[in-house]
């Protein structure tokens, strides 16, 4: 679905150019989710912005369904680390925003958004504002907003980092289910090794000065559930990632 070829990113600091990453090659397809993991500042979020089309690569190219990615595409949905909800919009208005921006009528928007809010069990919070929601509820609204656009690629930027352990696991299961049911391709940036292994079938381990692309598909997406966290294979993959992160 998405193919990354010779991608590079850098930034300027005191007049000199600092390379964040370079020579990056990988591809992501539906049913084979990719977890991106690495220390702070290694360019994980930058990579996600490039994949979403919000930023243009200075070198290399990103192909989405065989076409060069030039700006934002409706089929690519991004959920940001701090949810990106607008405080002055209610849950329903936030979840509907993408559709409203694209000129959908109120009726069409309602028809699309309400079932998603129901699926994410936040349909009882329609008129609440984000400051009246818990972290987990905010995250569900952000996911609902992304899903309302019927994407084929879902990009998540450390989506569960500020949630408690219970909510985190619950939402991880939810994301897996959503990706399975909708056949979504998933790229997921995280700091958590366990999360990377649970959600990903492939892992892109980004370290300063290089990257490793690993296969971590011990249990296929279809069979993956909470029990997988207790599986020996799960722990083996966690240790494998740990080893690569230390290098």
């Amino acid at each position, binding site marked *: 679905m998405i193919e990354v070829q010779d991608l590079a990113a850098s930034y300027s600091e005191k007049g000199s150019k600092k390379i964040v990453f370079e020579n990056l090659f990988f591809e992501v397809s539906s049913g084979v989710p990719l977890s991106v993991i690495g220390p702070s500042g290694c360019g994980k979020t930058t990579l996600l912005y490039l994949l979403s089309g919000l930023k243009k690569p200075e070198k290399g190219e990103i192909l989405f369904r065989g076409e060069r990615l030039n700006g934002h595409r409706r089929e690519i949905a*991004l959920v*940001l680390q701090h949810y*990106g*909800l*607008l405080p002055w919009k209610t849950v329903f208005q936030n979840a509907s925003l993408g559709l409203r921006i694209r000129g959908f009528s109120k009726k069409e928007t309602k028809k699309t958004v309400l079932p998603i809010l129901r699926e994410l069990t936040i349909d009882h919070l329609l008129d609440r*504002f984000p400051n009246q929601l818990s972290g987990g509820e905010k995250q569900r609204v952000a996911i609902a907003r992304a899903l309302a656009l019927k994407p084929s690629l879902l990009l998540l930027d450390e989506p569960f980092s500020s949630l408690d352990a219970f909510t985190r696991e619950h939402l991880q299961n939810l994301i897996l289910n959503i990706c399975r049911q909708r056949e979504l391709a998933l790229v997921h940036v995280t700091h958590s090794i366990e999360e990377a292994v649970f959600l990903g079938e492939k892992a892109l381990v980004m370290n300063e000065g290089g990257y490793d692309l690993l296969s971590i598909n011990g249990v296929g997406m279809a069979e993956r559930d909470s029990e997988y966290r207790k599986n020996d294979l799960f722990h083996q993959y966690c240790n494998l990632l740990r080893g690569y992160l230390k290098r």
Partner: protein
Amino acid sequence: MFKGRTLMAVAVVFGIWYVLAFLFKTPILPYPHTVFSTLPLSMERGLGNHFGVSGYRILLSLSWALITAVPLGLYLGRRKRIDELVSPMIYLIYPIPKIVFLPLILLLFGLGDLSKIFIIFIIVFFQILVTTRDASKGIDEEQILSVLSLGARPKQIFLHTIFPTCLPKILTSLRVSIGTSIAVLFFVESFATENGLGFFILDAWSTLDYLSMYTGIMGMGILGVVLYEGVDRIERRYCRWMFST
């Protein structure tokens, strides 16, 4: 319009006034009830008309300031390079008391309403401009990215993110500007005019008619309360999320 807390505040102000009037026992500081008893006489002398004229001047100058300073502030806040060029000019002009330009303003706009409205406008313009620019500058980039990632165009980013983010701060600057504009109003109505609350107060003062003077002062207070209440209503309606818990 008036809630319990507003009535309580009024009661406290009048309570303090009563205590001071009792302590000083001077005609310059009469009891509130004596001032109230003078109200019908002051109305006959055109207090209502003076109130209307002052309200018109304030509303017009605040409207001009909002219409010009808010878009400019929002724009400067989002355009770093232009802001870097314009900000030194703002910082140079902002601290200068605009009253010093009075002779020039009178020369340009004459002795009528326009010069009075203009001087209030130019003073509050900078207050609103600087606050709006800073609010626009401080917008969380993640919010902009989140709307961009939904396919928003510049106009939609402005409507859905930039303006709503800045609105509470614009309203705060408006509140500050109301206080400033009423203070300046008193000054601008002290020359070349025979109407407005400032004129009414000074006229009563010069004839030692302290009771009428206080009715004029109360008029200014009421003008402030009406304007502040208006801003509060706008805030409760358009920034509803701030009051949700």
